[in-house]
């Protein structure tokens, strides 16, 4: 009874330690993945671990855990009544859809429900596995080591602060290892728990060692991080926003997001389709603009006023009637994965046809953000057709627009943070020095980036430190970045020169995938596939009497807006002022395709070296990991190989090798035969541990081979069986 209780407590402690270690794996998840609330999973894990521990028979435990899983999935994702017909059909559809996604290797499209489901199943399996590892096999070292590595990696590469996690893991690991080796020794020496009335006293040295070493480790001075570089790099990937990355502190894919308050950092390419546009040419797909630069990113202070507009007659205007326009029509079809509750629209939007009747359109007049609402809540419009007036800006009109901005525009679009370093202003001054009008100045700044060593890259882009300015860092230190860096820098420099400008977000034209004859237009229209990777930011500069004119500072991208020279008014127009990027396009045939290639080339070239080295690292770590795994499991796979080999070979030499291999495996498991120990003695101690007599029987046969010089071929099947049993028992 006493023994039972003691060993129960021991098992309980061990298992709880394992569970707590496992919790260390779950803790960072809120921060490093887009898991919002890890508590649900923790509760489920606790439940599973509990059920595993009380060791109810499988016909009870499986339904129990399954029920828990169903309730969680129901509570989180399914509105239907639990276990109703509809409930199952929702689940079935979800699973079917996700399996299709998995089959087509489009992992990112898996729905949250399915991912949660998989994760819960993983927890279920882990509860079983850890019970086996910790309580049955008592092999926790590997898990403790993995936990430590995991925490350090997560701490190093993400925003997660693993300081206390390391301390906790260390202490838990020591407890687990101490207890298990304690138990192993007791087991090997055949001490029963009964003899341990003073178990508390025995545990004292263990406890004091743990306390002492933890305290010493905590108090002792530590080296500074030896490799601080990857931290900002990956941290930015976690915390930063790609082009429109959401900026929440999670690793982001490229895509449109709303929070731009902290820009910078790298992002992962993602080709999830967002929408398909059938249009006459490549357009900027605008979503909104932002007005306030904080030194780290952009904020929106001009959400209001908001006006409800009739989709048939949109009065929101980005440019005045002075601009030459062409009536055009576009059809937008949102993809299934996109979850936009805003309109993506081209410049000059005038009306929406085929817009669902039960939807409302609400426009933020300053930012141009157009919410689509169904009832009172934002909702996605899957498909609509928009009429728009495609503008063409005349160079001289822009050049002659002057600097006479309305006071309102000056108030809102000349803002700069107080901490903006002076060298940014100075640089802007130098760039525009030679120009005498607003358009040329803007153009000078826009083209400044195409030379002067700036590079387009989506990786290795730093995030500014607390006391650093985003623009300043890009202009003077990194000179490496993507659209956010270029466009923000341009806006800031323009503003420092007194030119009202704002930062605009949306998508670039996308990839032309088809040509279609539609009833929207007389000509053939192109179909453009716009993906998350096309999320983009650019610049709008205000010109009095003209309005907001888009500029494209980002290296490798071209302005999708039309500019022209009015030959009648100004005959001697210098062709050099034409947008530089348009020239090569005209020469090289299909402009739409060219641009896309160009931009992806630019991105690819800049990123390739980093990607190569990243791949190298990934490959290396994979090899190292594989080597480690192979090493740790060497006895398992070697045994599998040898069993096959020995089955077919029936000579004494094989037997000898097999027997010695068994000795080696036993040695690996802690049964070391001392050289002066006879085989019999050794076999006895092994058998005592496994409470069988297999080893003695096998040894007996082996002795006959080596000390009697006897052939054992008649006994072979029996011997092989004994040997296999022993090996399997040892390795289990």
């Amino acid at each position: 009874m006493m023994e039972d209780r003691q060993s129960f407590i021991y098992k309980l402690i061990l298992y709880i330690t394992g569970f707590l270690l496992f919790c260390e794996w779950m803790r960072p998840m809120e921060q490093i993945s887009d898991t919002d609330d890890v508590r649900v999973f923790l509760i489920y894990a606790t439940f599973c671990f509990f059920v595993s521990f009380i060791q109810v028979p499988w016909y009870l435990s499986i339904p129990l855990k399954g029920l828990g899983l169903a309730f969680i999935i129901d509570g989180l994702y399914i509105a239907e009544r639990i276990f109703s017909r509809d409930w199952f059909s929702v689940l079935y559809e979800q699973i079917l859809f996700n399996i299709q996604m998995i089959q087509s290797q489009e992992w990112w499209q898996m729905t949250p429900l399915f991912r949660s489901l998989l994760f819960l199943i993983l927890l279920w399996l882990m509860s079983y596995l850890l019970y086996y590892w910790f309580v049955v096999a008592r092999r926790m070292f590997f898990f403790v080591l993995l936990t430590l590595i995991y925490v350090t990696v997560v701490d190093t590469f993400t925003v997660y602060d693993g300081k206390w996690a390391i301390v906790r893991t260390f202490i838990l690991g020591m407890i687990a290892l101490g207890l298990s080796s304690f138990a192993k020794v007791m087991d090997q020496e055949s001490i029963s728990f009964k003899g341990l009335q003073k178990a508390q006293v025995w545990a004292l040295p263990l406890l004091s060692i743990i306390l002492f070493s933890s305290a010493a480790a905590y108090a002792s001075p530590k080296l500074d991080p030896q490799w601080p570089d990857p931290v900002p790099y990956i941290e930015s990937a976690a915390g930063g926003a790609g082009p429109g990355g959401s900026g929440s502190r999670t690793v982001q894919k490229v895509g449109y997001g709303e929070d731009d308050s902290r820009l910078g950092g790298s992002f992962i390419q993602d080709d999830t389709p967002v929408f398909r546009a059938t249009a006459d040419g490549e357009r900027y797909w605008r979503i909104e603009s932002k007005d306030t630069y904080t030194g780290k990113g952009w904020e929106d202070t001009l959400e209001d006023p908001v006006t409800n507009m009739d989709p048939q007659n949109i009065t929101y205007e980005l440019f005045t009637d002075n601009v030459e326009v062409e009536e055009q029509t576009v059809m937008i079809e949102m993809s299934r994965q996109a979850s936009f509750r805003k309109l993506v629209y081209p410049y000059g939007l005038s009306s929406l046809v085929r817009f669902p009747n039960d939807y409302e359109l609400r426009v933020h007049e300053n930012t141009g953000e157009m919410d689509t609402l169904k009832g009172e809540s934002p909702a996605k419009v899957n498909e609509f057709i928009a009429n728009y007036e495609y503008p063409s800006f005349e160079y001289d009109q822009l050049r002659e627009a002057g600097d006479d901005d309305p006071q309102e525009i000056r108030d809102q679009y000349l803002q700069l943070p107080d901490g903006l370093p002076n060298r940014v202003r100075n640089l802007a001054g130098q760039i525009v020095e030679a120009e005498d009008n607003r358009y040329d100045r803007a153009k000078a700044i826009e083209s400044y980036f195409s030379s002067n060593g700036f590079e387009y890259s989506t990786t290795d882009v730093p995030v500014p430190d607390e006391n650093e300015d985003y623009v300043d860092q890009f202009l003077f230190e990194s000179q490496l970045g993507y659209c956010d860096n270029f466009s923000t820098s341009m806006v800031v420099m323009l503003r420092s020169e007194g030119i009202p400008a704002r930062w605009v977000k949306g998508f670039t034209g996308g990839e032309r995938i088809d040509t279609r004859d539609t009833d929207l237009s007389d000509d053939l229209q192109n179909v453009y596939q716009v993906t998350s990777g096309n999320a983009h930011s650019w610049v709008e500069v205000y010109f009095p009497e003209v309005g907001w004119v888009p500029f494209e500072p980002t290296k490798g991208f071209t302005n999708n807006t039309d500019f022209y020279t009015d030959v009648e008014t100004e005959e001697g127009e210098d062709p050099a002022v034409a947008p530089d990027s348009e020239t090569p396009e005209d020469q090289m045939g299909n402009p739409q395709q060219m641009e896309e290639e160009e931009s992806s080339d630019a991105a690819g070239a800049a990123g390739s070296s980093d990607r190569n080295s990243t791949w190298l690292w990934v490959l290396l770590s994979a090899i190292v990991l594989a080597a480690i795994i192979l090493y740790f499991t060497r006895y398992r796979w070697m045994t599998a190989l040898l069993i096959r080999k020995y089955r077919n070979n029936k000579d004494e030499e094989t037997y000898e090798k097999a027997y010695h291999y068994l000795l080696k495996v036993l040695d690996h498991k802690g049964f070391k035969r001392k050289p002066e120990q006879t085989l019999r003695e050794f076999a006895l101690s092994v058998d005592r541990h496994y409470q069988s007599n297999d080893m003695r029987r096998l040894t007996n046969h082996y002795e006959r081979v080596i000390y009697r010089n006897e052939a054992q071929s008649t006994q072979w099947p029996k011997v092989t069986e004994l040997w296999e049993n022993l090996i399997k028992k040892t390795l289990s």
Partner: protein
Amino acid sequence: MIGKEEAAMLSLVALLAKGHVLLEDVPGVGKTMLVKTLAKSLDCDFKRIQFTPDLLPSDVTGVSIYNPKSMEFEFRPGPILGNIVLADEINRTSPKTQSALLEGMEETSITVDGNTVPLSDPFFVMATQNPIEYEGTYPLPEAQLDRFLIKMKMGYPTAKQEMEMLSRTSNGHPIEDISAVLTREELVDLQREVLEVYVDRTVNRYIIDLVTGTRTHDGVYLGVSPRGSIALMKAAKAYALIHDRDYVVPDDVQFMAPYVLSHRMILTSEARFEGQTAESIIDSLLSSTSIPVKRNISE
């Protein structure tokens, strides 16, 4: 024999290996009883010689006496001509008498008054001696000691064993109830079987490793002679046979080594001064000589 299983077994080993046993212990621990029991259970001719300081060699070997009737010298065989001979307190007699026995043990015959008399078969001597430090003893010379295959100690029984012993002996001695389990012929057969027990080269190598160890050990002045190696092999063979095996394993050698080797070596005075004994040296040798566990070791 309560609590004397090991001693009984060792005696049996010596008997089967055609060797002799030297029992060294204080009086009263059952040395004589052991030999008597053995003799009785074997259906053999049992003789006992009580060695005293005034015992003469002829008292051991026997003497020719003139028979006036037949006018001839008639040989009266001494106790050495029995199958199982108990030489009690062998170190209390003079070396001359001792060697009369010891020479008989080595040869298979004795010579009395010019007559060569063959010794009986089986012939098994079990000598006892009080520990050497007792007064009034003539210690056996080392050269003579290795005539004994095995030297062992009996030791005191445990309290529990002694309790049982008391209760058993209270109604007469149980030795009276012992009947023979083995005839003389069967014993001779068994002795022949011992010779047939297989000793592999690997095991011989181990024996040699052990014996060589005694010769190179720092605490040993005179190591075990080749005769010792042979003795160890013989004893291990007999031990294996007792355990129903027709081949020797290193365990047999390990078990027999302390009994076979300890009286065949002379320690240096330094080692003795440090408190080492022959047994402790053999123990240390056993725990430092590695066991052969593979076939075909190269010579």
